[in-house]
């Protein structure tokens, strides 16, 4: 499949997250002291920090969450999205707490509701140029 959409920015800060997606693992950044989860990477709000996120670790999330807010794009602001219309772009509140911006797929956009339980699904992308990457999308929860 030709990838005609924008490519993600993968830099030193978020490389472990994108590496996780390649393994089909959705990672959150967890404090080893209190267990609070963050996405994207952040120093723990409540615990003393060690240098360069020393007390934090990327760990797999459950991959489940609920729709917090969403919209339905009925216009493509980029030619790569013309065939996707209409598509849902949403904030998903992960079970671990953070909000994650992604698409809700595998359902009619008119069926999406705030509070709806959703689960992660992975889409592997091999672009014409550059490294392969994986996107974490969400679909209505199966259970």
């Amino acid at each position, binding site marked *: 499949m030709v990838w005609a959409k*924008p490519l993600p*920015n993968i830099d030193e800060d978020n490389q472990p997250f994108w590496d996780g997606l390649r393994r089909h693992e959705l990672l959150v950044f967890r404090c080893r002291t209190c267990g609070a989860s963050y996405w994207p990477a952040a120093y723990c709000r409540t615990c003393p920090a060690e240098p360069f996120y020393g007390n934090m670790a990327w760990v797999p999330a459950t991959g489940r969450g609920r729709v*917090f807010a969403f*919209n339905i794009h*009925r216009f493509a602001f980029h030619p790569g999205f013309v065939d996707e219309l209409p598509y849902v772009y949403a904030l998903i509140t992960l079970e671990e*707490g953070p909000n994650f*911006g992604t698409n809700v797929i595998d359902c009619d956009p008119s069926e999406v509701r705030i509070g709806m339980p959703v689960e992660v699904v992975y889409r592997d992308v091999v672009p014409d140029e*550059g490294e392969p990457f994986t996107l974490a999308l969400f679909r209505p929860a199966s259970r």
Partner: protein
Amino acid sequence: MGHAFSGKYAIAGMAFLAGRFPGRTARALEVEAVRLAIEDAGLRREDIDGAINTRIESGAAESRGWTDSYARILGLPAKFYFTVQRGGIMTHLAIVAATQLLELGIAKYVAVGYGATDWSDSHQKDGRRRRSVERSGLWGRPHGDLAAASHHSFFASRHMHEFGTTSEQLGMVAVSHRRWACRNPRAQMHDRPIELADYHRSPMLVEPYRMLDMCLVNDSGAAFVITTAERARALRRPPVSVLGLGFGEAMRDLWWEKRNYTNLAVDTARESAFGQAGLSLNDVDVAELYDCFTMEVILQLEDYGWCRKGEGGPFVAAGSIAPGGTIPVNTGGGLLSGYYMADWTPFVEGVTQLRGEGAERQVAGAEVALVSGHGGEILRPGMCSTHGTLLLGKGA
């Protein structure tokens, strides 16, 4: 009692250009606006000894990169030139910097400028929308977060969910703005009145937002000259004094306080600005609010306290912000129906009203204007976190 800062500095000159200027660079539009603002103040270019440029951080291709300066092009004897770069609160931050440089006696007359070619950029074949790799620190383009509406609409999504705000009520924001624009001959939509039926016919672009929920796209240049109130009184134009300034940020609350999609970061900004000015909300005669989208107007009406949280929809539906309403909002048509110059749009309208130059749209007896700023996209996972409050007063 206000702060010693309140009333000490004043806007002495102001100018803007807004429309379609194909073939003009953003820099050229800024240069022209600064030249006009200096003339407006009745000053000579030789009088301007400080220069500040403003930009939106996520701005268009050219404005992100240019290095030449209006101060060089106009030959201004500026002792400093630098850029203040932040979406939606450019004028607010520039005033912080300029007044401190005036306070220290480093400069006597500071010019502040802005230029953008948003319309021209959007009509170029290879514009920034074709950018193939997301810029560092952003999120969402591969998922289709491609335009401001892609994430600003989350505010509408949440407010409609939590408070039952309706599409009709959003439509009344658009209609109210258009009614003001029809009284402003410089507004892009001056000759195009709309009613609710037109709103409902407007194409749905990013549901729940229709085209008429979104601000305009145009090229622009804008500038002002700021000096001490004492010096401004001696110049030819009616001075407009800076009464109070404040700022708010919601980025820290991104994970924890998920109410930040139904509230803008108004609280600290409002308290600072009104505290310095020694004023309360009842003293505000005109509200020039950052209206990139219709919901942002409803949120600010609630957050400032013109109505209670959740009641902004019925408030606008009653005609409260339109001509003849209880609080005149965006009297030049705002970003929705006037012209898109980010926070420069509410700023220039506030100055216009306090100079008493609003003509058909002039609010009688306007003494205090509130100029708000909003934006500063933090695209992880998509919010607009910053807020600025500027209180301006008639005279100096």
